[in-house]
C-alpha cells in the first residue's frame, strides 16, 4: 500500500480497513487478521495498526474479544451507517465547491446525473 506522506498513516489504514469491511472482504462477524499480520501486510509499525483499530473499536465497527482477537461487528446497521458516512464525506467537498460556483441544488443534481451518464457511456 502506498501512503500519502502528510496524512497520518493510522487514518489511511483505518480507511483501508473500512473499505474492506464495507466491501465484505472482511464480512460481518469475521475475525480480523492479527495486529502483526496487518502490520506486515501494510508494511507499518504495529503501534500504527493498533491505533487505527482502537478508533474502529471505539466506533463499534470492530469488536475486541479478550484473548480471542478482533472481529468485525455482527451488526449490519453499523456497517451501513459507516458506508453512509463515507458517502457523505465524499460528497461534502464536491457539494461545497459546486456551491461556491453559485450552482443551486437542482443544477448540482443535474450535473451529477449527467456526469454518471457520461461515465456509463465511456464504460460501454
Amino acid at each position, binding site marked *: 500500500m502506498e501512503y500519502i506522506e*502528510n496524512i497520518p498513516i493510522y487514518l489511511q489504514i483505518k480507511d483501508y480497513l473500512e473499505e474492506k469491511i464495507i466491501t465484505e472482504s472482511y464480512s460481518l462477524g469475521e475475525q480480523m487478521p492479527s495486529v502483526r499480520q496487518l502490520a506486515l501486510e501494510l*508494511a507499518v509499525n*504495529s*503501534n500504527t495498526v493498533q491505533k487505527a483499530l482502537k478508533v474502529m473499536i471505539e466506533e463499534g465497527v470492530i469488536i475486541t474479544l479478550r484473548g480471542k482477537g478482533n472481529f468485525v461487528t455482527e451488526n449490519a446497521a453499523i456497517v451501513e451507517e459507516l458506508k453512509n458516512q463515507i458517502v457523505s464525506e465524499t460528497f461534502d467537498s464536491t457539494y461545497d465547491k459546486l456551491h461556491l460556483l453559485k450552482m443551486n441544488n437542482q443544477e448540482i443534481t443535474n450535473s451529477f446525473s449527467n456526469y454518471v451518464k457520461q461515465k456509463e457511456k465511456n464504460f460501454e
Partner: protein
Amino acid sequence: MSNVLKIEELNYKKGGKKILEDVNLKLDSGKIIGLLGENGAGKTTLMRIIAGVNSVSEGVITVNGNTKKILIKENVSLSDHLDGFKATNKISEIVHFYNAVYQDFSITKYEDIANFLGLDMTKKLAALSTGTRGKLVIALTLARSAKLYLLDEPLSGIDSISRKKIISSIIRWKDDDSTIIISDHYVTAIASLLDEVVIIKNQKIRDLIPVEQIQSDYHLGIEAYYEKVYLGEIQ
C-alpha cells in the same frame, strides 16, 4: 509508559572537536524512532554512546534504568557493520561468535529471521552482496532479545527488494515492549515504520516529535519536514 532511554546533559568531543552538544532525550518504550541527520551529523556517534561503546566524559545515559556501561550493553543491541570480521569468515562462524559473546542471543530466533531473509550459513562474508550483508546485520542484531535496538543505517546502499524484506523482518520480530532507533539519511524508505522522529543538526538534537504531529500540525511528510528543519525554515 517507562523511559527505555534517558540522555541527560550529554556533551561529546573528539580530538577537541565538538561532535554532540547539550543532548537531552527521553524515549518511551515500545516505539520505533527515526534518528535523522546528514552524513557526519553524529548519528553513528550517538548510537555508539547510547550502546556504551564510546565513553562520555560529560552527561548521563540511562537505559532501562541502568547507568553502568556493562549493564547498558546487556540491554542494547547495536547493529554492527561486521568490519571486525575477516572476509573469509563464514556466516556460521559469525553466528557462533555472536552466540558466544551475547547471553541474550538466540540461535533459534536467528534461524527464523535468517530463513525469512534467505541467508545461507555456509557463505563467506566476502561473497555477500551489499543487500545480503545488510540482511545478515539485521538478523544478527534482532536475534538478541534486548530492550533497545539501535539500527545504524540498515538500508543504506541496499536494493529495494532487500529493503522491503529487511523492513518486514523489523516489523515481524520487534517485541511490543522493545524500542528501536533507526538512523538514516534517506527517510522515505523507513517513513511508514516510524512513530517518532529525532533530528540531529549542528551537533544538537531537536526535540522528539511524533510523526503524526508532523503530519497534522505542519501538513508535511517526514522527508519534507526534515528538509525544512535542515534549511532552517522550521525552527
